[in-house]
């Protein structure tokens, strides 16, 4: 479904991705784990066209999207939930969700999806008239995920959804990610919480300083001694 081939992305003269290749198949949850600064977020931003790669290619469903502007990439079916959530603090919860549906014109479908998201996150329905900025961190993460789902993505990119959240909220959010995936949305998940990520993913890539150093089945990686010592805190 998504094929990233040998992308190199720079911030000025600093090479953040030194040739990253990875693949996501339809229906999967693929996770990208790694330490701070390994290039996980940059990989997602390169796929979304926010920081386009200097060389290499990103192909989605047979279309080369490497040089497309961000809004066109969203139109092809890839929506990102960015790190730090980046909800619109001055828009109401409902307006935030409607912005997710910006590219859609099917009123009935939008109304239906809105109800679906209120079903996934009942707290958002309760707070629908409140400004996004008044929500707690966990609620904002739910809003960011809900907003992205409103675009009816084929591929959902999630950047650190567990960041700064209480364990019980993380549990809840990961439950929803599994549910979304079961409903047919392909998921690419970037996480520092490798334990959580590997437990719900089908496949995983390990990123270190701009390179993919390991990849494979999520269960297998969980038992890999190198992964255990570096990312799971086991010796």
């Amino acid at each position, binding site marked *: 479904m998504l094929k990233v081939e040998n992308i190199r992305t720079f911030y000025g003269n600093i090479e953040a991705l030194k040739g990253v290749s990875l693949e996501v198949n339809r229906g999967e949850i693929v996770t990208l784990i790694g330490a701070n600064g390994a290039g996980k977020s940059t990989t997602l931003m390169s796929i*979304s066209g926010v920081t386009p790669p200097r060389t290499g290619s990103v192909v989605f469903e047979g279309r080369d999207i490497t040089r497309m*502007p961000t*809004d066109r990439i*969203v139109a092809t079916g890839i929506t990102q939930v*960015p790190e730090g959530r*980046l909800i619109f*603090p001055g*828009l109401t919860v409902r307006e935030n969700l*409607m912005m997710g549906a910006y590219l859609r014109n099917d009123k009935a479908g939008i109304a239906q999806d809105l109800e679906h998201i209120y079903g996934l996150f009942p707290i958002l329905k309760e707070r629908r008239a409140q400004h996004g900025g008044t929500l707690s961190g966990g609620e904002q993460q739910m809003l960011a995920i809900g907003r992205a789902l409103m675009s009816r993505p084929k591929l959902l990119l999630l950047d650190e959804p567990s960041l700064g959240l209480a364990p019980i909220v993380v549990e809840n959010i990961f439950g929803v990610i599994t549910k979304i995936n079961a409903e047919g949305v392909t998921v690419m998940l970037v996480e520092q919480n490798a334990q959580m990520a590997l437990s719900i993913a089908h496949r995983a890539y390990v990123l270190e300083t701009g390179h993919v150093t390991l990849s494979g089945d999520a269960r297998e990686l969980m038992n890999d001694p190198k992964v255990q010592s570096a990312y799971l805190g086991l010796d």
Partner: protein
Amino acid sequence: MLEQQLINGLTLGVIYALIAVGYSMVYGVIELINFAHGEIYMFGAFFCATFITAFGLPFFPAMALAMICCACLGVLLDIFAYRPLRRAPRLAPLITAIGMSIFLQNLAMIVWGSRPKPFPQEALPAFFHETALTFSGVQLSWLQLFIFSLTIVLMIGLNLVITRTKTGTAMRALAQNQRAAALMGINVNRIISFTFMIGSSLGAVAGILVSVFYNTMYPTMGYNAGVKAFAAAVLGGIGSVPGAMLGGIVLGVAEALGAGYVSSLYRDGVAYAVLIAVILFRPTGLFGKAVRQKA
């Protein structure tokens, strides 16, 4: 006397408000003080007058056409002058804006000459300068009544566009977080163009109304009006549209009262005094929010 000053102040105030929303909206989406906005206002007046004298159009169609021309001018200004500098340090587009202001002023001087011209009064409805209402000694002309009603309609319309439409919501979203807006599939440049379009056409209306009201127009008229509207936008809280509206009205009234009760020599000084006072005592303005610096 006081009432008459208030009415005159309000008339000017609503016009300042029309210009000020243009500053505030553009600042809201790209954090740029568009110093050439005053020149768009001036072009509005000249376009309208030209359509009347050269093409024999009646007043209202000429005004509508001038709005459209200024909307295009605003969009072109953004595309050619500001868009290439979107990722540049903020000083670069700011200086460019000042440059564009000077350029447009001089362009107008070449096209229309530098001397003040009267507005073609013959195209205006004859009753404009007749008194519409008199109450307790205060006179309100039809023209003033027209200025009030037109501005109020435009302001209500603008508010509806910003709060109720998808494009308006996208504009607010963009102002809050440009990257997130792009990640939702919003075409950032298109929304910025839309913002320039709206702000510029409102500026054009203001220019036309002022040149009709004072029966004069000249290529440098945008400078003074621009500074005052900018002060109004800052007073209201730059980036806030309701703030700009309120700021314009407050400034217009303050100016009229200052001119009436202190000295008419101080008329223009009031705007600067307000600007300085706001920056000293309430830098975020009446409706503005303090910008939180992200870690």
